[in-house]
């Protein structure tokens, strides 16, 4: 009997985890797209869905792709090509979340049309306050893939 590695041992956990994450990502992406098409504002608690064609439409499409990557890769995650799909799902989310965060940073620095050169300390911190876009909210959950990659490489080293 071959010795199981951690990734194989935790296969069931990762299966359920990425199934839930994939479904939520897919739902967020579809909502993004619908909100962008209808052009109506949507904000609920810490969640804010952008209604412009670029972030909501194009970005929403990418979030849908991320969800599909998660769902298509969750079975047999210890297999390299399946792990690559889940990793790609996270990479797509990182692209969207990264650009959303970069946009927040870009808006937080200058003082605005009538203000000074730089934003006030209060204005700076307020720029990072909730609500957040779906990709930013999903960002911490997408980082779990790093643990999978770490376990995969640990297995490689053992072999």
């Amino acid at each position: 009997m071959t010795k199981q590695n951690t990734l194989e041992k935790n296969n069931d956990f990762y299966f359920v985890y990425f199934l839930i994450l994939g479904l939520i990502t897919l739902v967020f992406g579809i909502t993004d797209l619908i909100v962008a098409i209808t052009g109506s504002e949507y904000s609920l608690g810490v969640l804010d869905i952008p209604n412009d064609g670029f972030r909501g439409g194009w970005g929403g499409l990418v979030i849908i792709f991320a969800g599909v990557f998660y769902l298509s890769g969750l079975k047999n995650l210890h297999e390299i090509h399946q792990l690559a799909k889940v990793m790609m799902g996270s990479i797509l989310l990182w692209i969207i979340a990264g650009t959303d965060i970069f946009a927040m940073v870009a808006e937080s620095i200058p003082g605005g049309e009538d203000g000074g050169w730089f934003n006030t300390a209060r204005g700076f911190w307020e720029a990072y306050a909730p609500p957040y876009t779906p990709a930013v909210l999903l960002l911490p959950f997408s980082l779990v893939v790093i643990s999978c990659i770490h376990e995969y490489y640990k297995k490689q080293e053992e072999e």
Partner: protein
Amino acid sequence: MKVLLMGHPNVGKSAFFNRLTGANVIESNYPGTTVDYTKGYMRLGKRDVEVIDVPGTFSLEPKDKAEEVAVKMLRENKGAYVICVIDASKIKRGLYLALEIIEEGYPVIIALNMWDVAIDKNVDVDATKLGEILGLPVVPTIAISGEGVSAVISRLEKIAPVQVGDIIKRTGDAAVDARLEPDERWRLIDKISEKTIRFGEYKHTLKDAVGDLTIRPLTGIPVAIAVLYGFWSIFGSFAGLCTDGFLVKIFDGHWLPWLQGVFPGGLGDWLYAIMVDAGHIKNGVLVASDNCFESFGVLTSGLFVPIGVVLPAIFIFYLMLTLLEDVGYMPRLAVLIDTVLHKIGLHGYAIVPSILALGCNVPAVSATRILETKKQRFMMMTLLAVFIPCGAQIGIMQDVIPNSIGFVMLYLFAGYFVFGFILNKVVPGRTPEILMDVPAYQKPTLYNVGRKVWMRTSGFLKVAVPFVLLGSLIVNILYLLGTIDWLGNVLAPMFEGWFGVPKETAGPLVAAFLRKDLAVAQLSAIHMTKYQMISAVVLVSIYFPCIATFALMLKEGGKTFLGSLAVLLAAVFTWGGLLHLLWKLAGVE
């Protein structure tokens, strides 16, 4: 003494050249970075030796214009020393070219570059033994980090021509005097490889699996959509931060009022109008402008356009492009888009000049050399000059028509494919299939990224600032002389009737021949509807290429340039007029 750097495309020759000479040559992780030769000097002992970075070629039987340049360089430099740069992980292919050069009688030293990649791929080359069989120095190198480069330099002076017959003898076969036929050359390479190379088992890594996902259409297209999203999102955020956040404040809040205060003459004076502010009529009174977009002066609009708006856009564009190039994503994009581009008679690598053109049309016209046939080069040159707006223009569009920029880009790209399809049917010539070599993903180095972005951005500034200043000067003088008004009146039936734009568009169209970014900035000062503005921006884009692109197209295209001009005129009238028709049909003029 001359040294030629030769090898296949994308084996690191440009990186090697930069290490040898300390020069700044663009190096990228895709084939065709060098489409013309570059000269530099290296220190060898106590003298300076000329080094030539020759475009990549697979053999001495050229298949495209860049390979023709490579073979011509070799033939024109009899007696030159040749550093043959070979990708150590694909050594057999590289040895073919090396043997061809040896047979021509040149003294050769082999740099087994990308040694680290070969180790990763479990390719074990006995460099010492290979050197003994070939009778010349073989040095493992990693040009991007500089490893082994000094060993190549130290052994360069001692190399001498070798006879291919001696190499054959050392493999244990009977020597032949005549030149080798391709089959014989491959047999010799097999013999040499048996004695010197061991190909170990290669395990598919996670990096390879992720790489595969970016190439297969089903998974690669979503990834491409995400990458392009990231590209434009960062582009928009960064350009907005610099321009709206700081540079508008500097130019409109400080520079313009200061110049309005200190420049002699004041409003209404001709020199003041040319250099600072032409002003505008409000309620029948000439009033001063309150922003640099509308002031039109050489020292106001002329500096604000290239530095305040375009520079941040160009900087971030080149930074993102360089990262994609150095990571190795461009060849994957080329593979993905190959099928689509074949429909218009081009192939996947046409994406390289097309994307370069989004930065600046000038290097993009040079990059068309990687295409194999005259037909493909003519088509590519024409399409990019007509339908691909440069980064400077996009930067201004981002400021002038932020909500319509997506539509303008889509309309232009649609024109690229429609006219490409027509040209493919009409223009005679071949559109051959190609095999694309996809390099491994690499981690970009800060040194290379920084150097490339600096070279490209400073290159832009050197070209753009003088042209924008000159453009502002010429247009302002023409305004003062009444030439623009006269031109507008003469062409009014065509502008208003066919294109659906105001006759005042004549001024920006004159400026567009010098700089398209300046032209779009000037459009913003003309009173027109949203739809007229979109039509006018499209017109500026597809109308004559800027003068720098124009000159290079003439040089590269020769006689075919007249054909490009004919296509350009057809595109301006049909594609420009069609948009007006669409607005009419939609009832939104």
